[in-house]
């Protein structure tokens, strides 16, 4: 009976922004030519081609394997690391936390290339290993290597969800187990982690999903062995017939959306079951760190090992590459040291603009996106309605479109929808593309902040006389301001490292570092790439430091 008009309109706008590009892609998948070609016919031939293509099958299987494998690695490891950092007296956990999150913010291409320099067949770690063992005991170009790298680098995603859930669990439960005779390890496995099972499962589904749309890592690490995954298969389709065949690419996207669908349903089911863990309260749970005792060093060792494998090694790789002119077998690195790449970088014509734009899209665009995500999250906030269920699905859908396709589809929207043309090739279009692609991630951050707000605080304001909008402005938003600040920071770092989405929307004046990197990768200027990456990483690092100084709680 009560009017829900503002909520519905926000959801409808979201639906429009999400479904317009996707709808276009769907439509394209049933055509024999680009949808804007003068002569087009409806046909299923694109489906026939893709679904019977052996490469598609192998790409699908590889993606499935990688997604499964990385989920199997990332979820337990992320859960355990979250337990160690959040619930125990692990030494140095304050400053370990930002390091834990670092891989989320590194461009996967950069990360992968760092691994090549460090642990590739002639990497600076592989050569000594080869001298020692007579062979290199690892192969980062294999599926196993890919799964391992992908799994390790996605630990932070699980960590983010698991840690914020763990913060809500009252210490009593753990202490009860401790008193009952369980060591810290048993407490984690038997009490703490089962308590946050819904969060872990949710994160697991998300990681599985990210596994399916992995692009940067397989692009660099899968290349030498020709390992195709869904997204690199998409790339292959671009060239296979000489001219880009949009209908074939569209079919792959449709296939990805169909993989999404059951996952979203699964996610919803998992969240519904979360109700049985009612002891988790948003607030007031008393927390005392669990004493690790002698386990401390083992735990620290585990954490350090992961950090070395996931952060130190690739960063050392990329950092080293940026200060040498040559590397690899038979090179004495000390003779090759140079700062020339950074000097050359300074000569790079669009660099300053690229850095400024990157900062701009991160800082201003990030803030605007957080504002939009907040509006959408508030529209669904405490509203048991079918519309909200629709929204849950909507926000995940863009994740099914690899950034490159999403970018192309959004370019089409700007081109073919009358009145939008003047926005094309402005930072606004880039911002819209980024916001749509990262919708699911941002929404999740904000909804989890909203979950922390006790309903009475809002109801109190209603009863006192504030309408729904006043409640949002005066109570809800001020209450989640730290969560919003944290989300802004995360979105800033994600936007700063984003590389594929903006490619079609770039022009003079809209270049960002991520896309410059991809463009340089094509022609081989790896000297510049590595120097630029180091600067990119430094920007992310400064962002993290700033966050810590400001006392922003990264977990929202």
């Amino acid at each position, binding site marked *: 009976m009560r009017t829900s008009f503002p909520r519905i309109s926000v959801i409808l706008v979201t639906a429009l922004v999400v479904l317009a590009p996707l709808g276009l892609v769907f439509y394209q998948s049933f055509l024999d030519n680009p949808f804007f070609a003068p002569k087009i016919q409806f046909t299923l031939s694109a489906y026939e081609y893709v679904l019977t293509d052996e490469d598609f099958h192998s790409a699908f299987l590889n993606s499935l394997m990688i997604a499964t494998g990385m989920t199997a690695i990332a979820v337990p490891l992320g859960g355990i690391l979250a337990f160690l950092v959040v619930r125990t007296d692990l030494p140095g956990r304050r400053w370990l936390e930002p390091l834990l999150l670092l891989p989320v913010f590194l461009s996967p291409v950069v990360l992968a290339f760092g691994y090549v320099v460090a642990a590739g067949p002639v990497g600076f770690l592989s050569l000594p290993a080869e001298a020692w063992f007579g062979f290199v005991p690892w192969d980062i170009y294999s599926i196993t290597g890919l799964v391992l790298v992908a799994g390790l680098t996605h630990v932070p995603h699980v960590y983010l969800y698991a840690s914020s859930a763990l913060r809500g669990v009252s210490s009593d439960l753990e202490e009860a187990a401790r008193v009952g005779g369980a060591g810290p390890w048993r407490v984690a496995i038997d009490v703490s982690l089962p308590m946050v099972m819904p969060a872990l499962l949710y994160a697991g589904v998300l990681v599985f999903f990210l596994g399916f749309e992995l692009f940067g890592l397989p692009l660099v690490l899968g290349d030498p062995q020709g390992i195709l995954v869904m997204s690199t298969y998409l790339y292959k389709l671009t060239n296979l017939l000489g001219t880009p065949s949009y209908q074939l690419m569209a079919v792959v996207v449709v296939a990805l959306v169909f993989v999404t669908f059951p996952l979203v349903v699964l996610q919803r089911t998992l969240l519904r079951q979360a109700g049985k863990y009612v002891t988790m309260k948003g607030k007031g749970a008393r927390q005392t760190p669990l004493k690790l005792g002698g386990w401390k060093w083992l735990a620290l060792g585990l954490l350090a090992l992961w950090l070395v494998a996931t952060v130190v090694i690739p960063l050392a790789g990329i950092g080293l590459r940026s200060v040498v002119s040559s590397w690899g077998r038979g090179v004495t690195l000390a003779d090759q040291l140079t700062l020339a790449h950074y000097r050359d970088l300074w000569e790079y014509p669009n660099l300053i603009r690229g850095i400024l734009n990157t900062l701009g899209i991160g800082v201003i665009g990030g803030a605007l996106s957080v504002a939009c995500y907040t509006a959408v999250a508030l529209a669904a906030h405490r509203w048991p309605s079918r519309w909200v269920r629709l929204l849950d699905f909507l926000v995940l859908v863009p994740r099914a479109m690899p950034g490159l396709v999403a970018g192309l589809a959004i370019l089409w929207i700007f081109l073919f929808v009358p009145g939008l043309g003047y926005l094309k090739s402005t930072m606004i279009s880039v911002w819209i593309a980024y916001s749509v692609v990262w919708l699911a991630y941002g929404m999740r951050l904000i909804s989890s902040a909203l979950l922390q707000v006790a309903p*009475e605080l809002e109801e*109190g304001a*209603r*009863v*006192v*006389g504030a*309408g729904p909008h006043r409640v949002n402005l005066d109570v809800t938003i001020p209450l989640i301001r730290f969560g919003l600040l944290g989300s802004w920071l995360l979105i800033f770092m994600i936007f700063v490292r984003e590389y594929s989405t903006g490619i079609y929307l770039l022009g003079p004046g809209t270049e960002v570092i991520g896309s410059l990197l991809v463009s340089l990768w094509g022609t081989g200027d790896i000297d510049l790439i590595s120097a630029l990456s180091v600067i990119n990483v430094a920007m992310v690092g400064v962002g993290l430091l700033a966050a810590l100084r400001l006392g922003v709680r990264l977990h929202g």
Partner: protein
Amino acid sequence: MAELSVENVRLRLGGMEILKGVSMELERGQVVALLGPSGSGKTTLLRAVAGLEQPFAGRISLGGRPVFDAGARIDLPAEKRNLGLVFQSYALWPHRTVFDNVAYGLKLRGVGSGEIRQRVEQVLGQIGLGQHAGRFPHQLSGGQQQRVALARALVYSPPVILLDEPLSNLDAKLREEARAWLRELIVTLHLSALCVTHDQVEAMAIADRILLLNAGQVEQAGTPQEMYGAPKSLFVAEFMGANNRLDGTLAERRDGYAALAVAGKAQDEPLLWGRMQGERAAGGPATGIVRLESVRPADGPGENRLGLELVTSMYLGERWEYLFHRGPLKVRAYGDRELAPGRHWLEFPPDRVWLF
């Protein structure tokens, strides 16, 4: 005219019917307590009055003006009902000072800042927190927070204030003081209030009338004295006060009284007489309820007396509490001295025993 009237309100939550047709009235200057076990729907009813839950049938009017009417499709949102609500958790906004928490309702009503200052100071003075206006909620004790929550609901003089378990978050000693303070405030300010509580003592202390809810329906309504002294059902009798429950068979009926053969009765033991509440044929099972304070240790066998073994005596300070048993039968009673172990006689005055 009733300040608040609720007519046949029905409400579903998550597919379960929580309120199954509840009606009640609240007169001006009166305090009505909604009492009931958890899950009886008392908080839901309060929230429906506040406009925080949406019934699917019935009417709710404030001062004669309908704020909800399923038939006429009227449903005023919470902020338009001009009520005051004190939450169980107080729900003070942690990002605002005490002053700002209290002032918010006035600000929303477009009151000028000078008047806001004056009225907030006045109400903070009334609740004894005049010195704490600049503090944040987390800097206050539980009792102080409870008062701020009350001030926040009172400051714009709503016709009715709603209290959801207002004292349940305070510890036992503080709770008794707060109860007296709250009753005093209500009386001196001539407030009309609807108060949810699961504690019958609290309900009787604060309220002029009590509405006892059971599984979404009104079990009995009346003054505290009626509720305590003349329960109409077993549920009410058991819910109010501290009771002994005596199960058995109905042996005899006479003039509104009946005799209960308590389960496990010895051959020579007398029947237990009590007031017959409701209709029940002789020979069927029946339950006797008697308040703890009505049971008296007696010096020997006699009318309406039962002999039981003393299990233990507990010293409560101002009196002793005894626990007796005989087979499955357990009886508690009060007295003013420690009893010797062994068999004792207990008298159950017939007018104080209700048979259901």
